[in-house]
């Protein structure tokens, strides 16, 4: 039995997971997330938090799986994409563990990990993947040995749009309460669709920056906050569904898988469900405990990669803040 320890620290979450190559696949998934009292995530503050919490999270994961680092077959680390200072925290710990315990170090792409954990936890086989999080918005499909980006945001990510609006409108932080984004919640009180907000789909790509500006302007103009949230939500989610629909019709895949921190929205699920039904595709949504950033996904993807001979010398294990999913070969999935 293979046992891999995975470390995630690309943004504001330090996560440690342990994966094995037989059921139940994931035997530990512990984390701590930096939530600022106000404002957004400052990379320096976030990385300081991650460094402080890392030992405790690591210990919790080992305890949860009743195992030790000696027992591991390798250490998987998310080298990117993400915030430089945050990435360095996890990378430093992973390198130290690999050297101290003489374990192979396995580089993992954070985006690929979101996809792989979605596949193993939902049972989807060859889906169009909709990857939605604070820093990423992309529609992806696997083709000839790699995950290919079919369409993506040209500016800010969907999560960034929702969080920034919530912050400026005084709805957050925290941005997610009881599993529902505060913008989703606020939209429930909306009744009127605001006419002149921009819906920007350019071929296969999308753009949210104009929608954010228009929404903030609507606040200043004195529009009802519920109506703004409703309009913002409807436009943003519809854009994502439109690009997904395009990818499904292009690739003729029969499954749609939604992954990442914004995957949980019930409103997005409704819309996506309609598109799936229309294209006779099955819809899968990653379970909530694996939706946000977590160590289990890094461990699991590291395990897949390690089984196919992927590892990296410590001396070459640079962080890659802009590492794209379509730059990663996936020998475990031809």
């Amino acid at each position: 039995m293979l046992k891999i320890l995975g470390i995630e620290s690309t943004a504001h979450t330090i996560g440690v997971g342990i994966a094995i190559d037989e059921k139940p696949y994931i035997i530990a998934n512990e984390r701590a997330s930096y939530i600022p009292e106000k404002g957004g995530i400052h990379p320096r503050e976030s990385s300081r938090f991650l460094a402080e919490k890392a030992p405790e999270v690591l210990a919790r994961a080992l305890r949860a799986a009743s195992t030790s680092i000696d027992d591991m077959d390798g250490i998987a680390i998310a080298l990117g994409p993400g915030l430089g200072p945050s990435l360095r925290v996890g990378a430093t710990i992973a390198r130290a563990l690999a050297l101290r315990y003489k374990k192979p170090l396995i580089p993992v792409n954070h985006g690929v990990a979101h996809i792989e954990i979605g596949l193993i936890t939902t049972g989807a086989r060859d889906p169009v993947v909709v990857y939605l999080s604070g820093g990423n918005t992309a529609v992806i499909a696997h083709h000839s040995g790699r995950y290919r980006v079919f369409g993506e945001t040209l500016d800010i990510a969907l999560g960034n749009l929702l969080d920034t609006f919530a912050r400026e409108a005084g709805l957050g932080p925290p941005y997610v309460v009881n599993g529902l984004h505060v913008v989703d919640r606020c939209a429930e009180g909306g009744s009127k669709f605001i006419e002149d907000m921009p819906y920007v789909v350019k071929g296969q790509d999308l753009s949210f920056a104009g929608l954010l500006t228009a929404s903030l302007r609507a606040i200043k103009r004195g529009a009802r906050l519920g109506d703004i949230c409703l309009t913002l939500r409807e436009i943003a989610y519809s854009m994502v569904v439109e690009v997904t629909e395009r990818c499904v019709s292009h690739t003729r895949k029969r499954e749609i898988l939604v992954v990442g921190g914004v995957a949980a929205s019930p409103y997005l699920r409704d819309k996506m469900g309609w598109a799936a039904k229309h294209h006779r595709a099955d819809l899968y949504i990653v379970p909530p405990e694996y939706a946000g950033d977590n160590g289990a996904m890094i461990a699991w993807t590291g395990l897949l990669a390690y089984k196919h001979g992927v590892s990296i010398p410590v001396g070459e294990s640079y962080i890659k803040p802009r590492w794209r999913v379509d730059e990663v070969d996936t020998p475990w999935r031809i």
Partner: protein
Amino acid sequence: MEDLVEIHRGAEAIIYMGSYLGIRAIYKYRPSKQYRPEILDKRIRRLRTINEARIMTRLRLLGAPIPAILDVDPDSALIVMEYIPGKLLRDTLISGGSLGLCRRAGEILGIIHSGGVYHGDPTISNYIVDDNGDLWIIDFGLADYTNDPEDLAVDLHLLYRSIETLPLKSIDKIEEEVYKGYESVVGSERGREILERVRSIRLRGRYVVERRAKAVWLTDQED
């Protein structure tokens, strides 16, 4: 309008074949999407219909060989256009089509670009060779106005990419002809500028990977 036959169902539009005032016609209809609120859905379908029809009319006036618009109904998101009988340029090239057609494909893209428009999907599957051997270009669903050399270069790049998926040995020769045709319309200075931009697009990792993947998918679909 009773004799409409569906010939293609894309993500955004359904294409029907029928007749209009006695001549064979294509009906391009953008169906409503139930996941969008009605007011938004109406707005998008209406604007995209108008945009596409306007661009086609403009290009046709500039002499681009594209189907004539016969009727537009923005409120029902419908465009009726002339039907061009013929074969896809892609199929013609595979069965040994002439280099003259490739040159013409470049010229046509040049005419569109000179009109301040990018096509958005100018692959060899969107060019049609009619029964007289004349070349046409169709599907302006992704087209828009632009002055940005980047948009134009992406167009040329997409055309090259689609050529590169052909199971042929003479790819370089074909691309050279395409460029000659393109340059003959936009001028050598502008032509070189756009070609330079195509090269830089290809050097960007994301485009190399991403756009190639799209070209591969397009090929799959046609097989």
